[in-house]
């Protein structure tokens, strides 16, 4: 949406609003609604061009993240991860080309996507161990870093990640292990977590309690949440295509992606 607005304002002849670099402008610039009702012929082609550029950028994002891998993984390190994230997989494979380290993968019941990640990492020659979710705290004392991917990054720097991520983050905090999140900037979202429907999405509890347990199924409420909220205090670093960032900086990066008027999606 920001692309559309930018193109519009460029065509209208006005210079770009400036990225609202100063905090002051950010806070006081509330009510500048533009009049978007003028139809401009070249708007469509310009927007399509800009979107194509964005698509090209998205293709290269995976590489942008993985090239930073060697800066963060030292040799003979033990890294823990949860579930399956394409960004983390590429990150680890890139690092494995030059360094040797071990990976512990927590499977992430009930989908157990960790199993797929483990087979692919082992095929790439990395020492991998698969553990159950229940053993996360038990083995955390031997882990040097925790690297996870996420579905969304929220406006306060928190995460909406795969289920079990909050427990993993708490265990890492207890052992003072750094928690690193590998995620591209397009995952940023302007919503804050205090709205009721932000974080949780549920799927059929059949994953958790299958229909074969029929006789108790009707008397029991089973839940199968898909996502977990991780507060920003538990996160050490975000690694994205523009480099590493602390969670406290996320709100500034938001402005590059979203115009303030669009914060209420």
């Amino acid at each position, binding site marked *: 949406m920001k692309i559309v607005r930018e193109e519009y304002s460029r065509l209208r002849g006005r210079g770009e609003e400036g990225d609202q670099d100063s905090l002051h402008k950010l806070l006081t610039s509330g009510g500048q609604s533009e009049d978007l009702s003028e139809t401009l012929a070249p708007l469509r082609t310009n927007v399509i061009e800009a979107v194509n550029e964005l698509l090209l950028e998205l293709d290269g994002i995976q590489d942008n993240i993985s090239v930073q891998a060697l800066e963060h993984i030292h040799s003979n390190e033990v890294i823990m991860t949860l579930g399956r994230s394409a960004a983390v997989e590429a990150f680890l494979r890139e690092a494995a080309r030059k360094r040797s380290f*071990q990976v512990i993968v927590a*499977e*992430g*019941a*009930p*989908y*157990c996507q960790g*199993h*797929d990640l*483990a*087979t692919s990492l*082992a*095929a790439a*020659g*990395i*020492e*991998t*161990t*698969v*553990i*159950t*979710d*229940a*053993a*996360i*705290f*038990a*083995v955390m*004392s*031997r882990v040097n870093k925790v690297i996870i991917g996420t579905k969304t990054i929220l406006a306060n720097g928190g995460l909406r990640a795969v*289920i*079990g991520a*909050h*427990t993993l983050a*708490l*265990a890492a905090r*207890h052992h003072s292990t750094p928690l690193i999140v590998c995620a591209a900037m397009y995952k940023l979202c302007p919503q804050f977590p205090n709205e009721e429907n932000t974080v*949780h999405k549920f799927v059929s509890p059949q994953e*958790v*309690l299958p229909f074969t*347990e029929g006789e*108790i199924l009707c*008397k*029991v*409420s*089973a*839940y*199968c*949440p898909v996502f*977990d909220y991780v507060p920003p205090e538990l996160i050490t670093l975000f690694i994205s295509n523009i480099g590493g960032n602390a969670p406290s900086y996320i709100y500034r990066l938001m402005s590059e992606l979203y115009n303030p008027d669009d914060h209420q999606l």
Partner: protein
Amino acid sequence: MSDRDGPSSETSCGSGATSASPAPDGECKKFMQQKSGQELTKEEKQQLRKAKKQQKKHRKEDKTADVGNSFATEVPKKQQKDATANAASGDMPIGNEKSLTGKAKNELRAERKAKQDERAKQSKKLDQGQQAVSTKTKPVPSEPQQVVKRLPDYVQADDPAVCKKMAKKLERQQIPQRQDYGNKVGLFLHLHQYSRKMPLTQQLTTLSTVHPAIVRLGLQYSQGIITGSNARCIALLHAFKQVIRDYSTPPNEELSRDLVNKLKPYISFLNQCRSLSASMGNAIKFIKKEISNIAGSSREDEAKAILFECIDKYVKEKIHLAAEAISKSAFEKINEGDVILVYACSSLVTSILCDAHKRKKFKVVVVDSRPKLEGRETLRRLVKNGIHCTYVLIGAVSYILPEVSKVFLGAHALLANGYVMSRVGTSQIALVAKAYNIPVLVCCETHKFCERVQTDSFVSNELDDPDDLLVTRRGRTPLQDWQANSKLHLLNLVYDVTPPDFVDLVITDLGMIPCTSVPVVLRVKNVEY
């Protein structure tokens, strides 16, 4: 027979005459050289063994005298790990819990043996070192806490000498040894990892002397048919009752000594099937003590009746009545309208909740984890009692915790430094509950208290069958060929330890105590005996 792994390479008592082999072997070699050409008779073999044991005891005493008690207490040990050849009939008592008469008898016997050995030694060429040893022949049992316990064999799977010794011992007891399965994770090379598809009972020959009740029990343990600390303990005692019932004293032996010797191979067998739990260990200790306390003058059927009564009393007092007492205490802690979280399957916690539900209304959240999925058993029992339940997997615990008011956890054992050893995942639940400021209560009977100490889940644990982690979703099993890739390991832990700062209260049959008071209870129990 040079496979003894002595506690140290102390060769201070090396005899000058022989080659580099340590003293006891030098001794025995001389002895054997005397009888070269003839086959050693059974008595001579026994004597040989006794002589060796005596030497070993001397060396141990040297070591403790040098190093001091403080070192000894740091060695992690399982008190009931008596599956060693050293604990032959009436040997030096482990710890101070044996009765005084037992100690006096053993002291006398040890002294007599020592004098015999001294005479045998002095008849050959002596070294100065051996003279030093012979002056220390009297054992020193009167020092408190002389706990130079040997490290249990099941946490030494990476030491080839220990493995060989174990194999020899099992051969002597005519029990097959279980082979490790699959490539083990680097951090756990010191533990055994067995496969459920290769139970030990398949390797038993028809000539084996293991009682059928024990064979059945071993199979039930290794296949996971009987699980849970209390269930295993009760099943064990039941099987021992069968053994005692079918036992008949051979002509020249005393019941008190011979029966204990008969039980040793059975215990090794059960240990090979599945590692003994803390509750089982305490029960075995109790039985051995009872058996050895039987007066030599009583008739066989009297003795058996006494033993049956003792076993029944133990089960009744320590397990059933304790559960009732804990139930009553826990009832005070449950409020009307509470939401209580439980994890996996604990017979004690389930019975507490079922009892309490008769008088108060509350809801329960059952948290479960792969691969055992024991929570479903808890769910069935609670639903049968009409309790409203919610069921989630352990990943979702941080979602459900804000609605929970208390957490009740069961324990497999309580260690002497206040750590709680329980099913893997318990520490995670306690951690997240602490983060949300929700009280965590652990329910544990006193017969599960254990004198071991442990600070992490690596040094002593149980590795279950790694194939359990495999799962088939939508027709594919990603980890199907995990053995083909040497870089891929599967880890299936059974236990983990929870630090005491996560636990707010421990409810036992002696009352409600904080986690740190466990050694006090242990001391009280020891004084009783």
